[in-house]
């Protein structure tokens, strides 16, 4: 048991210390939102938000954002150490389809996971919340 316990701690520490600098290095060099947005396929760019007229979608999106996204992007998407601001000029001009594509696919090589594990309506709720943030200055 002792050997096993020491092993687990040693392995996790070794992995963690090796992974942390790379991860943080990446997050310091966030891929610019414009570069990410440029990768969005045309058909996804034009997707319409099926919950655009849902009055509760933005508030549900806020809850989801706080649960899953705020740790990296800040509580109101203003940006934090591990993730860029989602209220930048580029993101303000992004279409709902583009934002949905980024939430779904992530920016895996830069540390942002894909959030396709959330059902599609929940991802659109997050998009609604982010669209609501457009009105706020960064």
């Amino acid at each position, binding site marked *: 048991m002792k050997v096993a*316990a020491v092993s687990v701690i040693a392995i*996790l*520490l070794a992995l963690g*210390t090796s992974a942390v600098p790379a991860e943080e290095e990446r997050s310091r060099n966030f891929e610019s939102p414009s570069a990410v947005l440029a990768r969005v396929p045309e058909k996804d760019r034009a997707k319409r938000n099926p919950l655009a007229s849902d009055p509760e979608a933005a508030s549900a999106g806020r*809850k989801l954002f706080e649960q899953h996204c705020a*740790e990296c992007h800040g509580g109101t998407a203003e940006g934090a150490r591990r993730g860029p601001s989602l209220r930048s000029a580029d993101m303000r001009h992004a279409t709902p389809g583009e934002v949905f594509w980024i939430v779904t696919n992530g920016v895996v090589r830069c540390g942002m*996971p894909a959030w*396709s594990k959330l059902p599609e309506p*929940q991802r659109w709720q997050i998009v609604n919340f982010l669209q609501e943030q457009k009105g706020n200055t960064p």
Partner: protein
Amino acid sequence: MVQKYMTGSLRSESHSGRGGASGLIPRAVAPETSRRGGIRLFHPVAFLARGCCLVLVVLSLFKCKAFAQESPYIVTYDHHLEEPGNLEIEYFSTFGTQRAGNDFHAYWVEFEYGATAWWTTEFYLDGQTTFHDSTLFTGFRWENRFRPLRTEHFINPVIYVEYENISEADKIVKEVEGHDVASDHADPNALLRQGHNHELEFKLILSKDFKGWNFAVNPLATKNLSPNNPWEFGYAAGISRPLALKASAQRCTFCRENFIAGVELYGGLGDTQSFGLHETSHYVAPALAWNLPSGWTVRLSPGFGLNGNSHRLLLRWGLSREFSGFSEILRGLFGVRL
């Protein structure tokens, strides 16, 4: 005689070491035998207490909990990896009924860490209690999952590589492979623990999300690293869906969106010497996950054997919690420069 490759040649060796037939030692004398043989028996309470202490020490390092959105699968994997920098600590139990032997309670603790957005690594510690017999620590596993593609595709592949260092007394049945059958677990622990396995296991995780449903298929191949062991094969497949697809605006514990229901199907496919369904075991297991707003996830999955080679019932349950900021704690501990 039917050859059983559940744990490769070491199983065969240990069987042959006592005459090549299982069950030569009467069940009733098994505990006595193990004591006379000088084999140390782990006291269940002490084992659990140590485990809990270890987990609590680790937990005390964290202040940030993360809301988990875990699938209900216990055997099957989907393509979703751990978020980078997060650590998930999981405890699982399996209660199994045993034909012609003592029922058992096997358990494992899992430390799952998102090293990057495309690489998740996990470390397992396994143990088991066989009723009217003994409690054992049965070994460890180190698992890695790699996501090769940057974006979501029609089907999303993940490469899975695992190293196992476990005794033949391991009964967590985390996967079924080769000719794993229920009777492999019928022997006394004192006998089973003499065999030890070093195995490499490979899986190709294929998974897709479609309209709230998740479909996942995991073909697997295992190689015992001892010489002259065949490759063994198996499969796992699952389908799951949240009970509600839209989130409610309020923070809630019993909302339908917090529950994900599914069903798993898994079993063995023989080995390179006898590929197929002959002398293999198969299970179907409904599964339910409850993701609590506090960061905890509870899972329940009763598994039912589909043929006479399977355990009649494998009742599994699990408790897990995800913590964010583990990488930052490490950075603080070791002063890694940013």
